[in-house]
């Protein structure tokens, strides 16, 4: 594993803590999937989460986004504690993508992104039926914003294709566009390059930099070490639900414990699938 340039030059990590997880613990019965994990993410920072299969990375994401109610610990976003309700988490400004792509398969790419705008728009049933000027304006704005985001992630030409008919790499990018549509302060990406070829991976990396440069913080789970060490400002290595090492990409990749965890790390076979 050789890394050419740990942090790309020319951007500044802010002082403001966007996301803070404190002592998050998640137990399923007797099994501790996430144990006492703490993490801080600053403005304009890209944080990587690595670890062998079953290390609890996705479970940790689920705890952050309110899909699971953590057994212990708390999550704050911009200084405010987040209630463990996905809806409120999104409204507060945290958006995510899924490891096993979960697009709305029978909706078009544009509609998928428009669904992401749901929590930032307000037309209710009666206004939708009456179609006043306010409704039209909002609908038009939603459509424009969605198209803009599709262009942004490079799917501007696939607007009317059903999500399920998009190529795999495009589906991953569509998920990112859908997440961005919720106007987040922080974006959580769960294996954004899984199944991609090197060229697509490269493109995704540039996309993530672009997102970071627009002022968002990003947390990435990934197995592709080259990708993670090229991309991230800071990396956390999770093993068996606990933080093993935290530091700059350079520190983490040279830490013998990390290598140990990966090479000897086949003793954990807990299923990390999000059980829906």
């Amino acid at each position, binding site marked *: 594993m050789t890394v050419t340039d740990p942090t790309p030059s020319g951007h500044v990590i802010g002082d403001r803590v966007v996301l803070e997880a404190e002592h998050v613990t998640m137990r399923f019965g007797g099994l501790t999937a996430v144990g006492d994990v703490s993490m801080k993410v600053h403005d304009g920072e890209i944080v990587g989460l690595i670890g062998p299969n079953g290390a609890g990375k996705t479970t940790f994401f689920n705890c952050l*986004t309110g*899909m699971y109610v953590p057994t212990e610990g708390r999550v704050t976003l911009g200084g405010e504690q987040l209630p463990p309700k*996905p*809806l409120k988490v*999104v*409204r507060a400004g945290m*958006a*995510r993508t*899924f490891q096993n792509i*979960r*697009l*709305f*398969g*029978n*909706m078009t790419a544009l*509609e998928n992104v*428009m*669904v*992401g*705008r*749901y*929590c*930032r*728009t307000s*037309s*209710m*049933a009666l206004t*939708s*039926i009456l*179609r006043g000027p306010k*409704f039209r304006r*909002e*609908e038009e704005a*939603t*459509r424009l914003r969605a198209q803009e985001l599709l262009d942004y992630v490079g799917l501007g030409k696939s*607007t*009317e*294709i*059903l999500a*399920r*008919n998009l190529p795999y790499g495009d589906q991953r990018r569509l998920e990112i566009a*859908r*997440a961005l549509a*919720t106007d987040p302060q922080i974006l959580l990406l769960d294996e954004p390059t899984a199944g991609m070829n090197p060229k697509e991976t490269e493109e995704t990396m540039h996309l993530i930099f672009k997102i970071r440069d627009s002022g968002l913080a990003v947390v990435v789970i990934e197995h592709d070490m080259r990708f993670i060490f090229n991309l991230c400002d800071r990396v956390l290595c999770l093993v068996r639900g606990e933080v093993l090492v935290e530091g700059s990409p350079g520190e983490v990749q040279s830490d013998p414990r990390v290598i140990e965890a990966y090479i000897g790390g086949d003793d954990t076979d807990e299923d990390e699938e999000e059980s*829906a």
Partner: protein
Amino acid sequence: MSTVTHSPDTTDTELSRLDRLREQHGDRAAILAVAGGALLLVSGLLSWSYDNRILDDVSVRFYPLGIQLYAMLLGIVALALGVLLFRRPQWLNPGRGLRAVGWGSVVFALAGIIAVAYQAGGLINVNEGGWVGLAGAVLVLAGGLLSPHVDLDVRTWPRLPSWAEILVIVVMLGLLLFATAYTLNVDDPATFGCLLITLLAVAIGLVGSGFGEYLGFIGQNNRRPLLLAAFLVAFLFPFTQDGSDANMSIATQILIFAATALGLNIVVGLAGLLDLGYIAFLGTGAYVGAMLSKSAFATIGWNPPFLVVMLLGMLVASIFGLIIGSPTLRVSGDYLAIVTLGFGEIFRLAMFNLDGNNGPDLTNGPNGIPGIPDLNFFGFDFGQTHTVAGIPLGRFSNYYFLLLLLIAFVILVFTRLNDSRIGRGWVAIREDERAAEAMGVNVFGLKLLAFAVGASLAGLAGTIKAHQDTSVTPDQYIFLESAFLLAAVVLGGMGTVAGVLVGATVLKLLPEKARIVNDYRLLIFGLLLVVMMRFRPEGLVASKRRQLEFHEDDEELAEIVQSEHLEEAK
């Protein structure tokens, strides 16, 4: 889910052989089809039977009636398709259409011959017309089977000026009105059967040849004129009935059924929540209407104006909708279906029991509330016959017009909600509930809203139904009726308006007109559900979304849809 391909139902090796045959015989197929069509046309001018008392008299030559006319119609369609086959257009597949028309014609001719032979006592009584017709039908079928395979290129659809497209729509709808009015007035069962075969053959022929898709495309381009024309046609329908209430009664039932099914379509088709107790909402509205009416058996001595009754019916039904929808917070999928079924049964049992002996007297128990008077809007008595432009319009026609307004309202609500933030939220929930929630969609609220809106529409329909039926009884609201509503939605095509209208019409009309079938209608209904789920789960009229779903490889279609949207945006 299967993808639609253009290959006929043959195996690979057979296919290539047939294909080669077809290529060689392209023009011969067209000649066969034209000849067959001509024969069918001629057969309509010939006599089909010696006996002039059967099948509405088909014994006279050069004066076509009944099935003679239908043979001529089939002949004309076959001729047209045959001529088209010579020209080999890119956007039509006349061969497939000919196959359908050919099969239909053969079945039609055989049915006609059998009907004559059966009713007149022997094949000897079948005149030359029947045999000529059969020969023509066989030729058309042969032409269809031999015609070459065409890969449709939908991009070559002819673009007409918009007035011409609107004209096409108006003509098609006019034909539809004429066909409906004509069909409803055919009383002879055998003739009716032959007519159905004819219409089915023509319809499948048109769709099979790609013309149906083209019409759909024109319709998409001219939504507003299409809608207006459709309502105009529906509005004109009572004027074709010459004061007779028989068909109007069926028509009103269809409208109520369709309005309720559209409400259910919001819940099932858009939000993806299976409701097996939906008929309870129609019942709620009907009971509200009945209890607040001037019926001598009404249990509440309050008679507000009907407008208030309608609003109350909607309100009460939507409250029930919220109650029934509230478990969706905790249960989903099959379990939700069972919960709604349980609520539906509780509703029926409660209406049955609340007669004063068991609980308070609200519903008059199993006898229900009879003697509900007709509506009266500002002196306009719905029970009276009114004459407009010399045409008498009876009691059911009055209700028909009111129900037409109702269904227009329901369609408006459905389409506008579908194409809005709310509708997108519903579809997202249907697709992936957890992902929708993670994207900030208020899942629980939207589910409740779906139940409430759907229920209130059914409740509204119920208040009118109470007055139109003049009585309300618990046994009108059994589980089977909910199943029927669901079937209308599924049969027609989930999530579409047109599909549900078609589904509701088919399910209500067939048992009324085909009396022979009447006793077996439930048997056929059950079978139909099973067969539909097996072979065409997306319904008769697939929504654009579902159409895309079933044409995964069809990138052209996607492009067309895309260009349409761009035009809309301009």
